[in-house]
């Protein structure tokens, strides 16, 4: 599997897939799961990241609302929060070969 976060990543968020339909979601400061990365809580540094992941996982079981919870690296850009890796950018936006599908309609130029 392509890596989600490189070693020593400083800025991270927590992601998962929604149980009912598999849609990519992000952990928010209100302990909810949002389909938009812009709503995600961002953790800076290792300790904050681990704490954020632990919070995501408490909602993982036995509530059963999301699955596959993990940390990944993000960047703050002028256009908002963007995933750092190709894999997470594709999860954030949708397939690069079907730009009409996924969430990329709201993320102009994300695959450019």
């Amino acid at each position, binding site marked *: 599997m*392509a890596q989600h976060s*490189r070693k020593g990543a400083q800025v991270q968020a927590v992601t998962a897939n929604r149980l*009912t*339909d598999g849609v990519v979601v992000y952990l928010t400061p209100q302990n909810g799961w949002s389909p938009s990365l812009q709503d995600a809580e961002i953790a800076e540094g290792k300790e904050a990241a681990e704490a954020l992941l632990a919070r995501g996982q408490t909602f993982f079981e036995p509530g059963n609302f999301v699955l596959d919870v993990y940390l990944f690296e993000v960047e703050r850009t002028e256009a908002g929060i963007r995933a750092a890796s190709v894999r997470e950018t594709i999860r954030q936006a949708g397939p690069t*070969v079907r730009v009409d599908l996924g969430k990329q309609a709201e993320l102009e130029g994300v695959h450019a």
Partner: protein
Amino acid sequence: MYRYDEFDLKLVNERVAQFRGQVARRLAGELSEDEFKPLRLMNGVYLQLHAYMLRIAIPYGTLSSRQVRKLAHIARVYDKGYGHFTTRQNLQLNWPALKDIPAVLDELASVEMHCIQTSGNCIRNTTSDHYAGSAPGELEDPRVVCEIIRQWSTFHPEFSFLPRKFKIAVSATEHDRAAIRVHDIGVQVVKNATGELGYEVWVGGGLGRTPIIGKKVGDFVPRADLLSYLEAVLRVYNMSGRRDYLYKSGITFLVHEIGAEEMKRLVEEEFEEIRKTGALQLPQEEVDRIQKYFAPPAYETLSDAAPEIDALAAKEKNFADWLKTNVAQHKVPGYAIVNISLKPIGKTPGDCSSEQMEAVADIAEKFAFSEVRVAHEQNLTLANVRKKDLYEVWKALDASELATPNVGLITDQIACPGLDYCNLANARSIPIAQRISERFKDVDLQQKIGRLHINTSGCINACGHHHVGHIGILGVDKKGVEYYQVTLGGAADETAAVGEIVGPAFTEGEIVDAVDTIVKTYLDIRKDGEILLDTYRRVGLQPFKEKLYAAH
């Protein structure tokens, strides 16, 4: 075509009801994901990057028009209006919601379809020649054996938890279109000196992390003994295959480690044991019963010449190009096999929209006895078309962007879904295939290059069959960046071979130029009548390597 009997129907309906209950319990939080995952996988439900993915079994790639229409309907109502035909002759939906899947399974059951054994360490969909029943020189319709294997392997209690997934393919012509030598078991229908039909059994072929060509273990297995013999192979594997290390758990490793001779000895020993203790013999009447489902359609007696078609081809180059590459010879005079390219220039290999599926269903109903095949190369086939209907069929296909004249040529590529969809992928496959397709879109250039298979996988699992592409491309991840490793000289047919790595991987920006360099080198040095594979086999890697890495 095979029709479900009462047992098939009951099995499938019971399974749908069972899964409906399991989904409800999962959504209600009564089952954890750890408990639910093996259950959903047994029903073909994966979790991919953006959504769930549902893999629908298409036994030996044969579909009726009615089934194709149902698939179109399901893709439209429960998905995003398209599906992806795979190298296992199956169909994958990329966006179904878990809560809808029981309803999808109900819809599938209504046309005798399901998703059982499309995942998990069991015997998967048995694949076959997409020209089955229509190919010249065929000894019998290979789908008869496939259907027997399907019935035997469905919910087989002993083989439901194998060390690894298990794939079987069957071919009944000398020219192998089903890639049987890269399957866990490849069955080749053969005739012995006395004219009796039987089976060669090839064991231990496979792609994935360590690609290996299968070894011939059974030289001539009599018809009545086929299931007992397969049982012997599976039992040896089930007992001796590794369960402690995923990457060495396939039968390929077992055969590789103990050698073909030892494997043969173990299988023979087990086979003898089975014979002593009550062999599963195939009663002739049961074979006959299944064979009837695959009886040839009501062919008309026709002349093989079709002057009106020749005249139209002389006038219309696009039609002539299509005839040249997409239409193959049929065993019955006056008929042809029509390949439907799912590789329009610059589009996703194997993708098919609901509208296209409906067009194919209509065309098949009107011109091809309502039957459609899926080819492992991710195309569709109409196996029985009257030659005199070819122009009308071409027109109808062309209207739905289904007549790209490229079957077997450089733009007819196999590509897995890759990192655009797949949770396991390291790199994208589809955009690479699309850019190669754009680069070589000129039909005359494609014909000049000749038969050339480019296969691309987005990870080492090799769903895109890259090891057996004449040119193979494997996507790898280097510190979050996509790179592409190139192999040359792979082949999936009766001359099966694993491609050789040319050298260091190329970046996404370099890969299409690298393919271009390989093609140009081949065109420069090829001898008359050679395809790229022949040239490679004659000269080896060196001339290609020199050109590819000249600047480095």
